[in-house]
């Protein structure tokens, strides 16, 4: 019944009923994640790549390194850009065509986590201030949609960045010329995003598609490696979070992001 946006009433009733007893449809705890599978370096031709499976949700991220002019206000910094694609085969709700609201939001939330935690040392990506810098393109492809795209995408994006190799180069006549050999991308922080859904008055993590359809609101927090919150996004409809709920979410997020970070960052 995923093909039309109308929510089945008894489904909503059942999910809220179960949650009030601290249970979920698939038997998980409210803050328990589905099985996470992570593979790095899955795309040979990309500088960096990763695929994350979160239950049936599947996300592929590719990183490309290009060159170009920096933004005028930060002439000595490289450029980071994130794009997300909701491919139609991932869900009956996804249509081909220019990115919609959801794809743009997804890309921006992933972007914000990486940018605000200063995960990439962008100053090291500067070749010639004001003229030539490296551009990091992060492309997020949703291969299958079964809920919680944000966490899966952010996780895959970080894994892909850690997997990214920069080509060596020399400058000849102001132009960048590739040389054989690679250096790792200067990744200096490891942001992890976790998303909470509010269903009734309960906080739920790693929502499945069913739960996402009935949630009242959604809150995403990105935490850097020191456990500081560096980005927050509230979405998912007209619902709200109380101050207590947000503090509670922050506490859970601190624990969860540590667990998740161990999966991506080895050693």
């Amino acid at each position: 019944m995923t093909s039309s946006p109308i929510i089945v009433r008894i489904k909503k009733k059942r999910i809220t009923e179960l949650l009030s007893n601290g249970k979920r449809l698939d038997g998980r705890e409210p803050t328990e994640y589905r099985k996470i599978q992570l593979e790095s370096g899955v795309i040979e031709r990309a500088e960096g790549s990763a695929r994350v499976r979160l239950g049936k949700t599947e996300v592929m991220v590719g990183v490309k390194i290009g060159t170009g002019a920096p933004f005028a206000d930060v002439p000595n910094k490289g450029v980071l850009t994130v794009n997300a694609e909701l491919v139609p085969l991932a869900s009956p709700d996804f249509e081909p065509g220019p990115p919609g609201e959801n794809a743009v939001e997804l890309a921006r939330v992933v972007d914000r986590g990486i940018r605000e935690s200063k995960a990439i040392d962008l100053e090291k990506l500067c070749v010639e201030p004001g003229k030539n810098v490296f551009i990091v393109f992060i492309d997020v492809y949703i291969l299958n949609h079964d809920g919680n795209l944000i966490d899966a995408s952010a996780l895959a994006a970080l894994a892909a960045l850690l997997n990214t190799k920069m080509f060596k180069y020399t400058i000849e006549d102001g132009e960048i010329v590739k040389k054989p050999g690679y250096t790792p991308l200067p990744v200096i922080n490891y942001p992890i995003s976790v998303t909470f859904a509010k269903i009734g008055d309960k906080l739920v993590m790693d929502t499945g598609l069913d739960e996402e359809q009935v949630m009242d609101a959604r809150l995403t927090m990105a935490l850097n490696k020191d456990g500081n919150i560096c980005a927050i996004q509230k979405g998912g409809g007209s619902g709200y979070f109380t101050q207590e709920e947000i503090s509670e979410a922050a506490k859970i997020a601190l624990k969860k992001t540590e667990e998740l970070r161990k999966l991506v960052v080895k050693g």
Partner: protein
Amino acid sequence: MPVFYEKKQLVAPGDLLAEGDYVPGDSTYKENGKIYASRLGLVDYDGRRVQVVALKAFYIPAPGDTIIGKVVETTPGGWVIDIKAPHLARLRASDVVERSFKPETTDLPSIFDVGDLIIARVVAYDRTRDPLLTVREPGLGKITRGRLIEVTPTKIPRVIGRKGSMVSMIKRETGCQLTLGQNGLVLVSGKSPENERLAVMALHKIEEESHTSGLTDRVTEMIKKERKAVESN
């Protein structure tokens, strides 16, 4: 009159299945006396009938099918129902309300509202008009509780099993009521969420392994094992 595959072999669209005096069944087509597969699935020869049980397929309504549908719209004359088929189905108000039905006075949303689930039977469908449903038989009507599971419509016969062996086994082992819609929707309702979860696990296992033999025994075993694991906790 040769056939080119063994029963339950995997075939792809365009594969030549049989030549000569055979009748094309589901997911097949006949051309110049030869029968080809039109979907990816498992071939089945039943006497002169050749058919393919598709691994995944949309539901095509057929008169007489019991289905589970979702109300997506109320109109002055009745309801529009999503039955997971290529077309939306219609349920006429006169089918539910008694003779005195007047569109201007009868409050249709109070009977079925958008978002409600109903069990209905297909009464007519001929590919030129939308399928027509009825709820005027015992056991049909609004669903008030339970959990909805989706399986591929072509797998529903496997969920039922030979003479209903599979479905009655799941009912017995999990203590849940199962309502099967031919359109691939299954309603599970049991005494506890734990029982329902077992039944759902069984359904997913059947869907994944429907092409293998001895499945009923393996599903029984899985339910028993899972139940033990839950009880020992």
